[in-house]
């Protein structure tokens, strides 16, 4: 795609500086990915071999990058997206490769400060920074980006990224339930569909859409199975499950499904043999709030599962985690119209994003939390918010009141894309886990 000549936001950065920064951060990041995986292996000594595959895919600069590059040379298009509102089925139906490009790189967030103020959510700042120095292979390989106007950060991010590449914005209505919202959202996706068709040169036929939906059904089935395994005593550490969830965002979905099924059958076998990943009385923690994105932003999961006393993450309510593939597209009739409506509804209606409101507030999120707390026997919830993430921060009181009623302690943890506060957060997380531990023992 042709680049826009006049930059609206981006300052001129010398090519040399870009290269220096990229090489430095890239080297550090490669090391960090290996280090995090080593740490995950250390905490869970009998980690199943099936996890090996996900470790490889988790490497941003590894085989998956090469695969996408090769596919691109063969003429396939890559379409990146920032939020989980982007209809993956439509991208797959057009024979394009979907990749999620929101960034978790800490160091890149500082680069974003050159364009937007520090008060802005670091996920946004980091994504801008990554684009500035061309760090993320998936973001660089994307032929077009689908950005969603959910929060303020995402709204302006789409403008800023427009300086580099072609960006398609889709705007979800902030009230979901009404008829006119649905009609509006459908029109948004129709425009998006036309754009995808124009870029890829492939017409999205009902046959293609159907097979894409069926492919995603299989992925959702494996995804749900993995979440179901986490219901009982811990057979998988939370970090590992989160890693598997995350890899689905850039991996080849068919292969990912197969590998996840393999992992699940291994885990189910272990559950039968009663081989636990950690002692069954380990406090069961749930994370909710701002998306946690691999590779850098693994601070909180690391702290929880390496803390003393140890905790285990059994559930989360993150759009980069348990929510990602959970809802299937419910096709009633195999006509193009109904399938398209089904896809549109799946991406809008079950979403628990705090950008939505209704007369009862963000009811869907509350319901999700209550169900998961009961189903996974959660002992405590960590409400994770990065500084500048207004919508999640503002919803805290509502969630706290609901969870208080269930007698589940909530801990509000605010942090930033920085490693400096690791020690301080460690103390806070350990204190919380200590408290949970004593509650579990009672």
């Amino acid at each position, binding site marked *: 795609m042709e680049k826009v000549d006049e930059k609206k936001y981006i300052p001129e950065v010398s090519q040399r500086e870009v290269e220096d920064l990229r090489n430095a951060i890239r080297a550090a990041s490669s090391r960090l990915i290996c280090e995090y995986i080593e740490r995950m292996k250390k905490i869970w000594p009998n980690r199943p071999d099936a996890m090996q595959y996900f470790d490889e895919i988790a490497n941003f600069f590894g085989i998956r990058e090469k695969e996408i590059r090769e596919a691109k040379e063969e003429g396939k298009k890559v379409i990146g997206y920032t939020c989980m509102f982007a209809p993956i089925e439509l991208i797959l139906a057009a024979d394009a490769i979907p990749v999620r490009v929101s960034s978790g790189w800490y160091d890149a967030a500082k680069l974003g400060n050159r364009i937007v103020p520090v008060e802005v959510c670091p996920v946004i700042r980091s994504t801008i920074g990554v684009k500035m120095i061309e760090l993320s292979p998936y973001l660089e390989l994307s032929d077009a980006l689908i950005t969603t106007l959910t929060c303020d950060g995402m709204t302006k991010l789409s403008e800023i990224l427009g300086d580099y590449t072609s960006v398609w914005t889709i705007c979800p209505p902030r009230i*979901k*339930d009404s*008829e006119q919202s*649905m009609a509006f959202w459908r029109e948004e996706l129709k425009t998006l569909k036309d754009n995808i068709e124009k870029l890829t040169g492939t017409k999205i036929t*009902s046959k293609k859409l159907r097979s894409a939906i069926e492919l995603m*059904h299989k992925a*959702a*089935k494996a995804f*749900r199975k993995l979440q179901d395994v986490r219901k009982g005593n811990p057979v998988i550490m939370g970090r590992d499950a989160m890693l598997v969830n995350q890899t689905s965002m850039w991996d080849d979905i068919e292969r990912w499904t197969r590998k996840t099924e393999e992992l699940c059958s291994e885990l189910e076998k272990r559950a039968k043999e009663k081989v636990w990943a950690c002692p069954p009385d380990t406090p069961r923690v749930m994370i909710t709030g701002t998306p946690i994105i691999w590779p850098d932003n693994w601070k909180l999961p690391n702290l929880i599962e390496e803390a003393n006393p140890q905790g285990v993450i059994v559930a989360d309510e993150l759009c980069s985690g348990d929510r990602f593939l959970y*809802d*299937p597209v*419910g096709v*009633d*009739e*195999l*006509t*193009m*119209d*109904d399938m398209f*409506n*089904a896809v549109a*509804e*799946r991406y809008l*209606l*079950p979403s*628990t994003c705090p950008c939505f409101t209704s007369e009862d507030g963000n*009811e*869907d999120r509350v*319901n*999700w939390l*209550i*169900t998961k707390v*009961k189903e996974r026997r959660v002992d405590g919830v960590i409400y994770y918010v990065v500084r500048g993430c207004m919508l999640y921060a503002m919803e805290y009181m509502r969630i706290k009141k609901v969870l208080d009623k269930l007698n589940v302690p909530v801990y509000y943890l605010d942090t930033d894309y920085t490693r400096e506060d690791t020690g301080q957060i460690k103390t806070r997380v350990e204190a919380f886990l200590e408290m949970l531990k004593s509650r579990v023992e009672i």
Partner: protein
Amino acid sequence: MLLEIISELLKLTVFAGLAFAGVLVILIWKKDLKTKVSYMRFFIQIMALIGLFYLFSCTNSLLLILFAIFTMTLILGRFFCGWLCPFGLYFDLVAVIRKRLNVRYWSLSEKLNRNLNRFRYVLLFFFIILPFALSPIEPWQWALAIFLTGPFKPISVLLGPVEPLVIPWRSVLKIYDLNISYPYASIITFYSGEDFALISVFVFIALTLASSFIVRRFWCRFCPTGASFAILNKFRVFKWIPLLRLNKVEEKCTKCGICKRVCPLRVTEVYDQKGGDIATSMCMLCLRCVEMCPYEDCLKLNMAGRTLFKSRNWLEPSKIK
């Protein structure tokens, strides 16, 4: 005499046995949870058509069948429309053809749908009042007229439409020995002259079938027969009676909207209502929403507190072996 009764009973037993075996076969054969109940419903609809045919031809008492269905509706809810009505079967067959042809359906706006639902009571009133308007009778005869299926047939509005459908030779309308009887056609022909009837019946048949091709179960949205059953569930006095109830668990619902979209009548209450028993006179208990709901235990069909059927994670194939 005794032999005759025994043979009749035997026939009924064989029929019931066949129906039961058919349901069982579908339960075992259909592994896909998304279509399991739909297939069962189709089978039962066809069985009901045969059953009604048999009942009409041997007992010959419309009032008795009407009474039985009335009582069942009172106890079980408006399931007649979804599971037994032969008229509904026609529409479903049209929908199957439409799906085969890969043609989309049109959905009406919620407001129009609600208004149509109100309109059905106007139609019901019209059909009941019609005989009185056409041939005035003495007030003392009214009670009799309402309770008897005489020349006025006011009550047969409720089940009369089904009658020509299941006993073709009693139908009024025949062209070159070709039976074109259709629900409500007998009523139309009953109240109008032969020539006018011929045209109006054709128009009626064409309209209802065509409309069900465009909008799913269009006629059912304001069918007066449905209204008569809906009335029973509408009055507060009767509200506690229906044993069959759709139940929703608010917490498990993610409001994904599937239940609203797949509903052939576009009932919105299942989606809108927060948890508990779904109270609506529009629902015909076809259970399409329950089988399509992808969240385990979220939607249930309860009978007197016991769960008969509930939503499952249909991504997994059925576990019955």
